[in-house]
């Protein structure tokens, strides 16, 4: 009885969370332009999606910004996490407090404060301001993902590598870096998803002509609701689902390997 009740409860909550999205996906196969009346199956909206230069252009911008921002923020953030260890405790603490600001600030505050900076130094909104903003909100997450990994690295490893004749740089890359790779990878993926997902910060700093996927969706749905947006949503969900399953399988593979090692 108790078990049935909790099953029913879970089902209801997940229905609440999924019904809107699944309906959106369902209507992406609608042959007419309606989000409420289904007139028959067609792939019309998927065709229109791929011919919509506004959306495809925005998709391209989103991917370029997300890739550049996550690569740059992973490099700067990882370097920062490693370098910060050698600072005095109170300085580390002060810098980490500043690092928490973009994490805790509501997006809208991050967005307008960066906008005010760009306005004050007269950088017009566009590719550059969006990229700089994305790097800014990505770096703290990179630092927070890499920092805990560093604690598990044995500092003597680096010294040992040098004692055995490795120059400092290759001692770092051969002895320390491989242990950081999982942390750096998850930091990179985190930055990538944050960038792709961001709407609010981009919306404020983008200026008049530069748009990403999220800002295009926002302005399109303000005017009319074309079902090509639904098709886009369906494809995005498919990508996310594939990614989540891949990560899950990867994790399982890892634990199995670990068990095998034992």
């Amino acid at each position, binding site marked *: 009885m108790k078990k049935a009740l*909790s099953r029913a*409860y*879970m089902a209801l*909550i*997940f229905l609440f*969370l*999924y*019904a*809107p*999205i699944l*309906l*959106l996906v369902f*209507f992406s196969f609608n042959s007419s332009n309606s*989000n*409420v*009346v289904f007139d028959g199956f067609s792939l019309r909206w998927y065709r229109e999606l791929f011919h919509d230069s506004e959306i495809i252009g925005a998709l391209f911008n989103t991917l370029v910004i997300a890739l550049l921002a996550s690569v740059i923020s992973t490099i*700067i*953030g990882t*370097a*920062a996490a*490693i*370098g*910060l260890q*050698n*600072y005095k405790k109170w300085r580390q603490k002060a*810098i980490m407090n*500043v*690092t928490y*600001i*973009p994490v*805790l*600030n*509501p997006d*809208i*505050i991050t967005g*307008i*404060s*960066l*906008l*005010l*900076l760009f306005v*004050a130094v007269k950088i017009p909104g566009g590719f550059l301001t969006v990229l700089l903003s994305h790097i*800014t909100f990505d*770096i703290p997450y990179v*630092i927070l993902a890499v920092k805990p990994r560093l604690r598990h690295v044995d500092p003597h490893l680096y010294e040992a590598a040098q004692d055995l004749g490795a120059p400092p740089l290759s001692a770092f890359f051969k002895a*320390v870096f491989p242990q950081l790779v999982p942390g750096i990878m998850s930091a990179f993926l985190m930055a990538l*998803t944050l960038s792709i*997902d961001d*709407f609010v910060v981009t919306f*404020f700093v983008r200026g008049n002509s530069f748009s990403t996927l*999220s800002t295009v*969706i926002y302005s399109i*749905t303000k005017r009319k609701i074309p079902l090509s*947006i639904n098709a886009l949503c369906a494809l*995005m*969900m498919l990508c*996310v*689902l594939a990614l*989540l399953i891949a990560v*899950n399988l990867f994790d399982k593979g890892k634990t199995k390997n670990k068990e095998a090692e034992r």
Partner: protein
Amino acid sequence: MKSKVIAVPYIVWAGIFIIVPSLFVAYFAFTDSSGSFTLSNVARIGEYTHVFVRSILYAAVATLFCLLFGYILAYIMSRLSERAKSVSLVLLMLPMWINLVLRTQAFQNILMDNGMLNKMLALLRLPESHILGTPAAVVLGLIYNYLPFMVLPLFTALEKLDISVIEAAQDLGASGFNVFRRVILPLSMPGVYSGIIMVFIPCLSTFVISEKLGGGKVYLVGNIINDMFNQNYNFNVGAAVSLVMMLIMIVTLVVFSFLDDETKEGIL
């Protein structure tokens, strides 16, 4: 490994792109369009008191409902088998990865007068609802968007809970309710506090959800800021409103991290 220099690019970056912009918010809040000092922007906040009160109220109600429904869900999930746990976690996280604008649009479609909600109500022979454009729709939209953000920290806290502690309480004769109130709830408080922070702050600052589901009739603090920066181009008043919002956020954070520390000390 011993080099301090490699952290310098970030420190410079944080100075330019984190500290300076925050100072600019304060600078714009206390100056007029010509750049001279004024208190008039801050004084104008008074006009918006009711919007602040409304925003805090809606965010608080949405947070409360998220806590209530989220707690039960997190508890059920924490008692599942390992396999079911990871499946339900993936199911919970999937909607979080879909763009906020898209999610809100999807929710709007459901609530429309000829949408799925009314079709279901008709099927059950219940009266039609015209919820879109009301505060209820906005609060419902907030819950829909941020419920997963509440469940995750609660789940993490509840999953760590040692089952033998609950069994011990039961063995000592505690009733179901007392086990919850005296054992489970206190031990899960860190998850409750971080869940509240994760939901309350984005709810307080939203403008997309109130715009899409409020039909232009539900005006929140986020909408003031959006209008000031994207329509009226009155950056100074916008900055003043943002400054007050930052203050509310800081108070929330301080209160809840203080409470969190208290409970941790209580447990140890």
